[in-house]
């Protein structure tokens, strides 16, 4: 397909922006329906407790209240519990997970009752009147404590708090360690993180009692997947549910990649009451009731030669699942399972992960999902190896990079689509002026001042665009890896693109318009992109795991190709030549050698619509669909560099430079790609320096508001320096890879490595995340023989 790339590759300003800039965004909280009721939940204040009784009578009698219901009152609403779609092993323990708890609450925030009223305030007021009698039980909030003998059990029906153990071995690991000159063993903890999409979750469910039809608006990343799972959870025929992710969804980062209690509950309440029911999360409520991320303990050991060549890897991790298994939670560590060897070689690899129940908010996929954890471990431990064997941190990476090429076999077991790691490292070093930095650093150390400087590297490779579906089956993933697009030329010469992706800030409308406008040879403004409504876009696997461009975007590209193919047949028919006698460029077919005999795409769209004269065997209309199931994942990569200044007296860290050189293949919109990198990097830096959700021993979330869960502001970041190398993927015809999570995956280890580098002359080898001034100060004290 010949295309003139007029829009692809250009920093076209986004189509999404004008309405968002003028207050015309169509976010769910602005949706009001006639007769709409509002739900408020009563949530457990205990980490673990038996429910003796729930008395809703006072709430039911309050002004404006239409219904007040306990978990027991609602028990008959569920055809199944809340879904978990990634049972990673045959013997995984999967607890019942009801939208409203019936006998036991297992985390602070577990729902015990719901009040429905004519206004949100009336519902919230009445929820205060619900009396719950609890028998408080001992809670366990830490993964290691949860596995100790005699630990309180989160689920009485299981013998202990283990959900599953999943393992992977490639090669002879013992032999690799036996012949090694050095073995470096490290232990890291991944703090629990709260995703913090700026728009809180919300849902509106509407029923039509006479037909049994439902419409559900939800701030979701996954309207199509949710439709299937709502049908199963509520026992509603799938064809009678329409799910709409509103035109504007205010961020997700994985937190809206789930099927939540409140969604099921609003549908059940709409069914029961025959009225539309709305629920909107408050921020602190969201902190309890929306998935968290990370919360792992990692042990990683690498075996190497004396010159720093890695021979083997041994990895053992404990991953908190929280109190229940949310949609894909058990699979999150598996997304990192193949990446604890990063972009490096070696002979043998062993990975083992145990999923652990704790009395905490359930975890699930948060931006990066498994890959930030893996990348952190390997990028930290390779620095430890560099120190052990006395090799420079940049050099040790270079020595261990997998060779450049296509389908490069990694010790983790996957074949990387297109690898070329050195140029990104080289470019990052050049932007940094590495030699200049080291001489500044040496000067500063010699000066002995309190502010010392350090540099940290992170050369990452990551996995996105989960595919193909057969491979996902081998990992026991409960869905496919495909996505869908329909491209339709309208009679007036405009085009409509229907996508299975469900954007929530990424700019798919802009990027898909660029792809279609170039392929169809029409102006960018003439492309409309429809998404997020299962009645409009019937097929989709939606938006998560940096899959949208590499799967759904490729489906758009392929569908455009099919439209052009069909248009060629029609053009040939109308021009009375053979299809192969036509040339296609920028939306115009012309007869070879007779350039003034042409048919343009708008002319053909109109001719296909009137259908007055069509080729034999051709149907009216000019549209085509594609369901694309890629042959492999895509593996974006890059090198990130952090430069920090550390006040050695207070432990305060200043991030002074951040350089990101990423390779996501050919770029559709460089401005959008930079934006994804900036935002991703900021979330990784936030994890490295500021953010951590903590629990008290009784299961109380201590960081239950934005006042004490430290989402950083602009004042905490430098401007970012970004650049790219371009190595096309072999996994799709466009050569594109995902970029939504790369920044988060690459950044945290670069920052911590930089802090350790700044303090290495003081003997510091580790600072835990988040590296608060106190933790840095303690690390310095400990290294110098003082008390921690």
């Amino acid at each position, binding site marked *: 397909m010949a295309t003139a790339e007029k829009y692809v590759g250009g920093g076209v300003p986004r189509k999404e922006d004008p309405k968002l800039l003028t207050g015309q965004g169509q976010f769910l909280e602005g949706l009001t329906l006639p007769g709409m009721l509002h739900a408020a939940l009563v949530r457990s204040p205990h980490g673990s407790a038996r429910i003796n009784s729930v008395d809703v009578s006072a709430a039911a009698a309050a002004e404006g209240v239409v219904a007040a219901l306990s978990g027991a009152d609602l028990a008959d609403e569920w055809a199944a519990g809340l879904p978990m779609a990634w049972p990673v092993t045959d013997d995984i323990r999967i607890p019942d997970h009801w939208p409203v708890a019936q006998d036991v609450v297992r985390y602070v925030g577990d729902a015990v009752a719901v009040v429905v009223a004519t206004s949100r305030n009336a519902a919230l007021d009445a929820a205060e009147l619900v009396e719950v009698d609890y028998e408080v039980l001992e809670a366990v909030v830490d993964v290691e404590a949860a596995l100790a003998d005699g630990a309180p059990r989160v689920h009485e029906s299981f013998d202990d708090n283990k959900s599953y153990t999943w393992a992977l071995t490639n090669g002879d690991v013992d032999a690799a360690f036996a012949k090694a000159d050095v073995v470096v063993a490290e232990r890291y903890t991944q703090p629990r993180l709260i995703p913090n999409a700026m728009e809180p979750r919300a849902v509106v469910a509407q029923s039509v009692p006479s037909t049994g039809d439902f419409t559900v608006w939800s701030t979701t990343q996954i309207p199509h997947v949710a439709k299937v799972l709502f049908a199963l959870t509520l026992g509603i025929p799938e064809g009678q549910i329409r799910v709409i992710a509103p035109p504007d*969804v205010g961020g997700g980062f994985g937190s809206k990649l789930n099927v939540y209690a409140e969604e099921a509950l609003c549908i059940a309440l709409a069914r029961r009451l025959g009225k539309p029911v709305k629920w909107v999360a408050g921020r602190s409520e969201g902190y309890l009731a929306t998935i968290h991320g990370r919360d792992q303990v990692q042990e990683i050991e690498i075996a190497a030669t004396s010159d720093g060549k890695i021979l083997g890897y041994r990895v053992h991790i404990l991953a908190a699942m929280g109190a229940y298994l949310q949609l894909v939670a058990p699979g999150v560590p598996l997304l990192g399972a193949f990446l604890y060897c990063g972009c490096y070689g070696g002979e043998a690899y062993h990975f083992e992960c145990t999923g652990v129940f704790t009395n905490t908010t359930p975890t699930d996929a948060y931006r990066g999902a498994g890959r930030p954890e893996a990348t952190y471990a390997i990028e930290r431990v390779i620095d430890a190896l560099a120190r052990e064997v006395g090799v420079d941190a940049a050099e040790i990476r270079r020595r261990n990079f997998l060779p450049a090429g296509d389908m490069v076999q990694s010790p983790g077991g996957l074949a990387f689509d297109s690898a070329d790691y050195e140029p990104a490292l080289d470019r990052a070093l050049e932007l940094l002026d590495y030699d200049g930095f080291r001489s500044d650093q040496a000067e500063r150390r010699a000066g002995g001042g309190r502010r010392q400087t350090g540099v940290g590297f992170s050369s990452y490779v990551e996995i996105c665009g989960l595919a193909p579906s057969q491979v996902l089956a081998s990992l026991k993933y409960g869905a496919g890896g495909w996505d869908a697009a329909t491209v339709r030329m309208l009679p007036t010469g405009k085009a409509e693109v229907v996508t299975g992706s469900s954007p929530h800030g990424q700019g798919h409308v802009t990027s898909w318009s660029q792809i279609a406008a170039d392929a169809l040879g029409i102006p960018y403004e003439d492309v409309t992109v429809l998404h997020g409504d299962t009645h409009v876009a019937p097929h989709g696997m939606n938006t998560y795991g940096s899959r949208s461009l590499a799967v759904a975007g490729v489906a758009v590209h392929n569908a455009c190709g099919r439209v052009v193919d069909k248009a060629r047949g029609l053009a040939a028919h109308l021009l009375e030549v053979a299809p192969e006698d036509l040339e296609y460029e920028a939306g115009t077919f012309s007869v070879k050698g007779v350039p003034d005999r042409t048919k343009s795409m708008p002319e053909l769209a109109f001719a296909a619509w009137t259908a007055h004269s069509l080729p034999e065997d051709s149907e009216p209309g000019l549209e085509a669909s594609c369901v694309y199931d890629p042959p492999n994942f895509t593996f974006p990569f890059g090198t990130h560099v952090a430069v920090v200044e550390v006040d050695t007296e207070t432990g305060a860290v200043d991030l002074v430079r951040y350089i990101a050189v990423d390779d996501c293949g050919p770029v559709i919109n460089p401005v959008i790609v*930079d934006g994804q990198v900036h935002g991703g990097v900021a979330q990784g830096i936030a994890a490295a320096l500021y953010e951590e959700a903590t629990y008290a021993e009784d299961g109380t979330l201590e960081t239950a508001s934005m006042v004490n869960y430290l989402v950083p502001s602009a004042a905490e970041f430098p401007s970012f320096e970004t650049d790219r190398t371009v190595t096309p993927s072999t996994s799709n015809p466009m050569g594109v890879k995902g970029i939504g999570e790369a920044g988060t995956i690459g950044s945290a280890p670069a920052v911590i490595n930089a802090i350790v580098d700044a303090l290495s002359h003081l003997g510091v080898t580790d600072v835990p995340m988040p590296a608060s001034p106190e933790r840095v100060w303690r690390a310095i004290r400990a290294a110098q023989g003082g008390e921690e």
Partner: protein
Amino acid sequence: MRIAARVNGLAWSGEVEPRLLLSDFLRSEVGLTGTHVGCEHGVCGACTVQLDGEPVRACLMFAVQVDGREVTTVEGLAEAQPGEAITVEDLHPVQRALHEAHGLQCGFCTPGILMTAEAFLRDNPTPSREEIREAVSGHLCRCTGYHNIVEGVARAAELLAADGPAAHDDDDR
């Protein structure tokens, strides 16, 4: 309680519950849903509006506190006449600059940032990047990493300067 205020140049008067937050008042009573509620506890800044030209957090004020005063929301920022539809051509330089700089992604935090940035640039028409970072540090954005928000506000300062001081200073707020 009965209140009378001007919202984006139009008079509003009526009864409100004393406990009604300014953010809820704007969204449900006045019907201006461009003011977003992100945290309801005064940290995220998404609900920022201008009260007599100065930025305030609408989730930390009651509707009754705006009695007799002028509220400007994101819907009032573009140059359209009060009550008229806003089009792309009407975008205020701060809005245009954020668009050009890709200073927004999901757009949920954007209205609040615009209201702060517009007031900030009135006070400081030629800010440094450092000053811009400080000025918008009362707003949380989870998408952009702030890089392009800072660039956007810097660009807005240029656009406003190019529009000439008259376009800016004759603002009678």
